[in-house]
């Protein structure tokens, strides 16, 4: 056997590089590093990938490998992560495209998982934060805790929470990240005595400084029931097509004399996904006693066929037994205009509680998802109490 044929044989047995495995990934923002995890499994054409913030992972829509080029597709957001695989590292960029051109953020990853870094007790808990931007100051609440993979938590504004953040701690400094393929959020900060100070990074280069003090229990954010108000002089009116195109209104027999929750949501809205199981549980528990729920979907495209497909997927994912109507698009101003009896509509989801007479009793803006811990439990209990109270009213 010649040397040349030996080399050819060796080449035959060289496996192409595979990105399968766990990756410690990073987006290099201006002045900060956003850490997240990637889990790639399978082989060849059957590769699958998940994007992870700590223990929370979401599947990506596709993985393509050509030679040393790896492309992770995030179809929901028309975004990609493109990288070159060299040994145990991936180097490339996160890219999405808007009407002002492509947005690029440098991406890199190395094999392995991020180490678990428990947070010191001095960091854990609820913090009242103030953000300072050129447009003015605004309140936030941080809820930080130790989870199975170290520091985690969420950030809450007047209109709801920003989803699950997972992070790392080094001494008195911390970094908490939320990257879902579209939203690029990083909260960095440090403990200075009994005060936290830091910067909130949104996207590649928006930086908002903040200061936080430990919550005393006094109200720092507006109450979710004080953000949106309603005209209560008559029954709450809506008229929108269901997923079969039939227009459903508040005057249908199924809603008459019932307590009705109107869930203003969007299938694109992560917080709505967290609220959906709670609404389904309420429906199953109280429907027999007179509770009805109707979901008003405000979707992305405005194309009723595409939007209906997305809402059907949402319905099936959460096994939603109540009607979902296509009410409009996910533009807060435009959505508010379709429900003129609501004033100050600002957030998805918003839950409107109607008494048996069809009039608005309560409007709750936003939803505290499981990432908010005790606040989530408190909210679920409050919603149950409200439903019980309305069911007890005489029709």
């Amino acid at each position, binding site marked *: 056997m010649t040397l040349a044929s030996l080399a050819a044989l060796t080449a035959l047995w060289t496996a192409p590089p595979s990105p399968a495995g766990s990756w410690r990934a990073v987006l290099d923002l201006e002045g900060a590093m956003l850490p997240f995890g990637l889990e790639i499994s399978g082989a060849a054409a059957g590769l699958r990938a998940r994007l992870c913030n700590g223990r929370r992972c979401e599947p990506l829509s596709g993985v393509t490998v050509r030679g040393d080029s790896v492309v992770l597709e995030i179809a929901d957001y028309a975004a990609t992560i493109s990288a070159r695989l060299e040994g145990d590292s991936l180097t490339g960029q996160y890219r999405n495209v*808007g009407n002002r051109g492509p947005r*690029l953020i440098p991406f890199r990853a190395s094999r392995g998982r991020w180490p678990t870094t428990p947070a010191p007790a001095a960091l854990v808990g609820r913090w009242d934060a103030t953000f300072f931007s050129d447009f003015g100051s605004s309140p936030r609440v941080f809820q930080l805790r130790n989870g199975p993979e170290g520091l985690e938590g969420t950030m809450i504004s007047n209109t709801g929470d920003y989803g699950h953040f997972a992070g790392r701690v080094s001494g008195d400094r911390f970094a908490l990240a939320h990257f879902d393929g579209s939203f690029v959020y990083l909260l960095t900060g440090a403990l200075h005595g009994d005060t936290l100070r830091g910067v909130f990074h949104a*996207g590649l280069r928006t930086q908002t400084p903040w200061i936080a003090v430990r919550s005393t229990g006094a109200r720092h954010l507006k109450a979710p029931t004080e953000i949106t108000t309603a005209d209560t002089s008559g029954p709450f009116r809506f008229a929108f097509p269901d997923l079969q195109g039939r227009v459903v209104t508040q005057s249908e027999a199924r809603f008459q004399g019932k307590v009705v929750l109107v869930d203003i949501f969007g299938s694109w809205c992560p917080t709505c996904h967290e609220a959906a199981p709670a609404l389904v549980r309420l429906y199953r528990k109280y429907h027999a006693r007179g509770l009805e729920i109707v979901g008003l979907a405000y979707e992305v495209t405005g194309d009723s066929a595409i939007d209906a497909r997305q809402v059907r997927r949402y319905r099936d994912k959460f096994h939603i037994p109540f009607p979902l109507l296509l009410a409009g698009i996910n533009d807060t101003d435009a959505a508010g205009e379709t429900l003129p009896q609501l004033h100050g509509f600002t957030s998805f989801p918003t839950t409107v509680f109607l008494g048996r007479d069809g009039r608005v009793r309560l409007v709750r803006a936003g939803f505290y998802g499981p990432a908010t811990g005790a606040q989530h439990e408190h909210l679920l209990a409050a919603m149950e109490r409200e439903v019980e109270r309305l069911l007890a009213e005489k029709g």
Partner: protein
Amino acid sequence: MWLLLLTARPACAQAGLDQERAEYRRWLASSPTSPLAAVAQQPIGAGLRLGPAGADLPLPDGGEYRVLPRPGGVRLEGASGSRIMPRGAPIKAGDYTLVVDGPGGREVLTVFGPSRSSKSTAYYGPSPSFVFVGPLAPPERRGTSRVLGMDGIEVDAAEAGSVLVPIGGQRVRLRVLRLPLPGGEESELEIFFRDETNGHGTYPAGRFVSLVPAAAGRYRLDFNRARNPFCAYSSAYPCPAPWRGNAIPAAVTAGERYARGGGEAP
């Protein structure tokens, strides 16, 4: 007190510049909403009629459409029915692509055609002498003002301060505005500036450049990344009015160039 900006180290400043330019060229050449494909941009006001000769916006070989502000959003009405136009999302109307943008009550329609002009982009070679790092001085007065972004859409921008740049042997103060981006959390620190190359190698109306946060509370100003407003690619877009005071009495031979009808070196 205005603090002097210092010249940055060239190796750091130029990282990724070639890739950014290549991506931008690809986007201009291929995106259905590339400014090279824009044929019209107009406030929607009480409504617009598109299509036949005599319409508000005549569209050769297009059908007839109406774009109407309605409760629940701007609607597109045509022979095949009516639909909502989500803000910022491209909507097909025959061979044309329509995008509604701008704040509520002041929506603007941009129409993109099936073909695009052959203009390309051209740039000065990278020059480390046009990269600066330093502080952002606070504004004399806080507040917001309405300005046109690079895509011709009016936004409410916040006064973010000013930078003092040592350029052409002088110290030039440049006003910085924070322009909001769609989505609520993101924004850009922008400088719309004029200099002595305008009309002599660069776009006559001026160029945009971003102020980028760097380490330790400082900012990077890289004129190699200066770019034309979209009105440089298509007369469909209105050009932003020059920002008060942002005239540099020197030639900024860095960033995007301009040559009427094409991107060849001027």
